[in-house]
């Protein structure tokens, strides 16, 4: 697989074209905003927090396929997770996108997010892949 087709895997392109949980969430309990001043990408993540877990998530974004797909997949994978679990998943994803675990396979917990592995060859794009995660996880841990 070329670097390019590895970067733009089917799953990524699909989430880009048909983003899941797109739009503003009714009765959200909080939202987080992310902005990449370098490229102007913007994302807003909305979530509804229950007593134990995250009940629902949605997002709105203007950005590249990588940031769009990552946000879309995030809204799926974090549903039903506790705040703590969400933070752990984010840390796990981050470690696998950056140098720390560069050659390792993505662990199973990350599910579809493994499709983001191609980003590792494009260091400038790692920020795109983590934009929505930062928008949410930096806020929700407050």
């Amino acid at each position, binding site marked *: 697989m*070329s670097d*390019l087709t590895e970067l733009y895997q089917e799953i990524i*392109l699909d989430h*880009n*074209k048909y983003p899941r949980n797109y739009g503003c969430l009714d009765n959200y309990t909080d939202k987080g905003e992310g902005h990449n001043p370098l*490229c*102007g990408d913007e994302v807003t993540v909305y979530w509804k927090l229950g007593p134990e877990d995250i009940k629902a998530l949605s997002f709105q974004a203007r950005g*590249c*396929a990588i940031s769009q797909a990552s946000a879309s997949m995030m809204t799926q994978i974090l549903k039903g997770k506790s705040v703590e679990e969400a933070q752990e998943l984010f840390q796990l994803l981050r470690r696998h996108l950056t140098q720390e675990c560069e050659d390792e396979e993505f662990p199973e917990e990350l599910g579809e997010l493994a499709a983001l592995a191609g980003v590792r060859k494009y260091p400038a794009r790692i920020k*795109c892949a983590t934009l929505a995660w930062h928008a949410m996880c930096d806020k929700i841990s407050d």
Partner: protein
Amino acid sequence: MPVVFLARGNFLFETRLILIKLRSMITTIDVASIRRDFPILRTRVGGRPLVYLDNAATTQKPAAVLSALEKHYKESNANINRGVHYLAERATDAYELARKTVARFLNVARSEEVIFVRGTTEGINLVAQSYALPFLKKGDEILLTTMEHHANIVPWQLVSERNGAKLRIIPITESGELDMEVFESLLGERTKIVSLAHASNTLGTVNPVKELVDKAHAYGAIVLLDGAQAVGHFPVDVQDLDCDFYVFSGHKLFSTTGAGVVYGKYELLQSMPPFQGGGDMIGKVTFEKTTYKEPPARFEAGTPNIGGAVALGAAIDYLSGLDRVVLMEYEHDLLQYATSLLSDIEGLRIYGRASDKVSLISFTLDGIHPHDIATLLDADGIAIRAGHHCTQPLHRHYGLSATTRASFAFYNTREEAEQLAASLEKSKRLFG
């Protein structure tokens, strides 16, 4: 009689043919030979030849510039204006020769009107800090335009925060040209400075600066032209334009980074306090009082980018060896060709349809974000720019956060425009 007519007709026809042939000989430059002057254009990206279409960000450098730079450091390097030794004189002469070369290039009245700075950004900051800050007061107005680069917005904001001057914005029309009617309605007794791009780095629009200068002068306002995207594309005559300041960056004129120019009318420069303090700009220094040199030295504190100035002189000499009118026609043709190729791509929208444009095209493509386009094109060896191009207000005007920009120079070719279009089609297929 009929025979004579026929002969005459034939003669005319043949002359016309010859003229057409001559014209096409004149207007087709030898691109292959020009490309050989730019060593970096031989680069291969992942096995493919580089297609460099990011010239608005920075241009490539001809071998003549690179060797002038090397020769300077090998044969003439010393600090300027300070030593009396052999090399110090050679370096000072080289630096001042570069100033004269720039003076000729812009057709200034006297070479003391040419100040070397780091680039356009520093140049605009110089005028903002040394002209606008001391001379404007609360309620005075500075006119900018919607299409300005951040470098022609933020320096004026910094000034206005301190002296209370007000920024007013000349809007643009649908095609990306200045709304001259609104411009005239904005002009008034309070207008002190009009500062605008000679050519826009995002829309490509070449503004009718001569007319703007005339109208601004009628109200006693001075005009600064940001020539960053102009000088590399067409000849500029500051006396003809009658602008008060003209600013550009050497690195967008086929020279190295770190050296640029502020042209200012001498009386204005003479009235202005220094921009920065330090060595080389002083007459006499005591702890009580320092006197300043006359322009341009007053505005060149410290050791300047001597090598950069020398390189800039070499870049201008290189351009002088080419017929710039022919280069302009060539670029114009290239722009039209690329525009027509891109216009044929479904879902592609071009921003900036001014009748007078420099050779750059900013666009969006339905369903593919500019950053993805940049990555996809890079895989084909094509270098373009994606993002806001330091014109966020302009992008906001169009309701966009980013566009893709392909910007051409005279060393680019029709084949490269075709590769750009083909690669965009390919990207569309990948993104379905």
